[in-house]
């Protein structure tokens, strides 16, 4: 049974369309990322999966349970880490976990053991008696994770989990997520706007303007773009693009003040281009395609651009 089946889901806010006919499946035991710029629809999808907002159109099944009619089943099986912290800052770490346990029907010895184990696993056991407001952002994030995993969810949903984490803390987070997946088979779904974070997922869905524009493993997605990525900066990039096309037959995409070309043997093109347009070209670089190139290839926009659906 797939962990998540999303079929034909659309969602509208009063002002704009956030999701349009989204279909996708997340397999059990996968680390799956939703990658997209702000306004791409990934947070809306996250909220629908977390049963935080009601479904408007389409269907979502989580471990076979319909989020619309069996929200209760779904809620028992998911753990949710929100982008905004959900810890009560006036309570201690241990108290936060205790009340979370009570919400999920855990109590007594079982609850104490689980909380202690979670805090140990996340390296925050020595802060159990401290109020959350005295903890650093990184430590709070760990407690947040302990809170979400306390009841042993089969699916962990995380909205922008790296927000506010320094690079070392991000590495820790991913180490923990992999352990969770490898040792317990927990399915992990996260949203991110960071390309390098999405690279770490088993599979990812790239979302733009409320649609899934690509869905595969990071390697496959990059392989699809193929060749090397050549980035040319010029004062009049549109004119240059036309000239390059006329002279070499290369078609690229113009993004702001840069031209992006995807060609095999990119290193051979560099001298040819520079010799042909020595005055026009301000800078030129070559590299392997990144997820950003995948994004550009699929949407025609640069990743940072705010792309949203017309309302």
């Amino acid at each position: 049974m797939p962990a998540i089946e999303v079929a034909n889901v659309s969602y509208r806010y009063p002002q704009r369309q956030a999701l349009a006919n989204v279909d996708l499946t997340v397999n059990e035991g996968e680390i799956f990322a939703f990658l997209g710029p702000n306004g791409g629809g990934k947070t809306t999808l996250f909220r629908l999966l977390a049963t935080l907002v009601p479904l408007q159109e389409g269907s979502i099944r989580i471990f076979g349970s319909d989020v619309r009619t069996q929200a209760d089943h779904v809620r028992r099986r998911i753990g949710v880490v929100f982008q905004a912290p959900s810890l009560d800052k006036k309570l201690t770490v241990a108290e936060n976990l205790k009340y979370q346990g009570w919400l999920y029907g855990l109590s007594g010895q079982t609850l104490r053991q689980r909380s202690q184990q979670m805090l140990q696993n996340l390296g925050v056991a020595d802060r159990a008696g401290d109020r959350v407001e005295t903890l650093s952002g990184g430590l709070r994030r760990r407690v947040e994770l302990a809170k979400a995993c306390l009841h042993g969810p089969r699916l962990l949903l995380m909205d922008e989990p790296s927000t506010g984490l320094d690079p070392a803390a991000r590495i820790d987070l991913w180490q923990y997520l992999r352990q969770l997946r490898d040792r317990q088979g927990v399915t992990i779904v996260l949203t991110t706007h960071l390309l390098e974070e999405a690279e770490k997922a088993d599979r990812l869905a790239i979302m733009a303007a409320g649609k899934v524009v690509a869905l595969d493993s990071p390697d496959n997605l990059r392989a699809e773009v193929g060749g090397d990525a050549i980035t040319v900066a010029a004062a009049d990039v549109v004119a240059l693009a036309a000239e390059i096309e006329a002279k070499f037959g290369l078609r690229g995409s113009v993004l702001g003040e840069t031209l992006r070309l995807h060609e095999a043997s990119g290193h051979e093109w560099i001298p040819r281009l520079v010799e042909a347009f020595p005055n026009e070209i301000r800078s030129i670089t070559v590299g392997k395609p990144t997820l950003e190139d995948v994004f550009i290839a699929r949407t025609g926009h640069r990743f940072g651009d705010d792309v949203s659906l017309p309302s």
Partner: protein
Amino acid sequence: MTEPTTLPNEPDTGVVSPAAAPVQPRPVLAAAALASREFVRFIRQPNRVVGAVGQPVLFWLFFGAGFHKSLQIPGSGQQDYLEYYFPGTLVLILLFTAIFTTISVIEDRREGFLQSVLVSPIPRWAMVLGKLAGATAIAVAQGGLFLLLALTIGVTPPWWAWLSLVGFLVLTSLALTGLGFVLAWRMDSVQGFHAVMSLFLLPLWLLSGALFPNPAGWLAAITTVNPVTYAVAGVRRLLYADSTVALPADLPSLPWCVAVTAAFALVTFAASCKVAGTRTTGDLL
């Protein structure tokens, strides 16, 4: 204290196996979690205690002392104003506490705590019950402290009336916190609540017989349909349960006060469950 830079290499990531049967939520335990959290938070913010008790007590002392000579409540026999005004002050403390505590729904939503409750597998009525029970415990604790001041003005109800008073305060607080919850649930800012408070909640209290006995004309009509009237009257009845002090002739009877207050509590609880049970995008304000 130094932060560990890497996670310890534990042999297992947790004792919880997700393959095991999913958790079985227990609504009453869930409500207890929220109620207990509410109380712990309250104790840790002493300024809230001062705010909810301090102002009514000051009002009571100032009004009571100020009107002591100039006002004689008709039909109140030998009561002076400090004494007359006592039950009203008690209800005002409950009202203030109910409001300050239910405003925290707005904070919970803004600070993010609420979202983790909303995605947990507990029924919404359990969430409401937890919030209201916590707020009620806080209100009764504060009201109870103030109640002891009755002894300083020579009001000495019998032991059973003390017990009944605590029970009646629980009922009244439940009703008022329920009212606060319904008003606060959809609000996105504490500022918005202030307007409701001065235009709706305070007038409700003003026209409850707390400050002056049942007036005539259209004010009388409002006072009669105002449920807070019966809360104040109930406290008054119980305080003078065994006393020979003459109470205003038109004061509602004790059973009637209890019945109206219980109905008031039921209605606001049901309304709270209803507003909280409606899932909209508003849950994410």
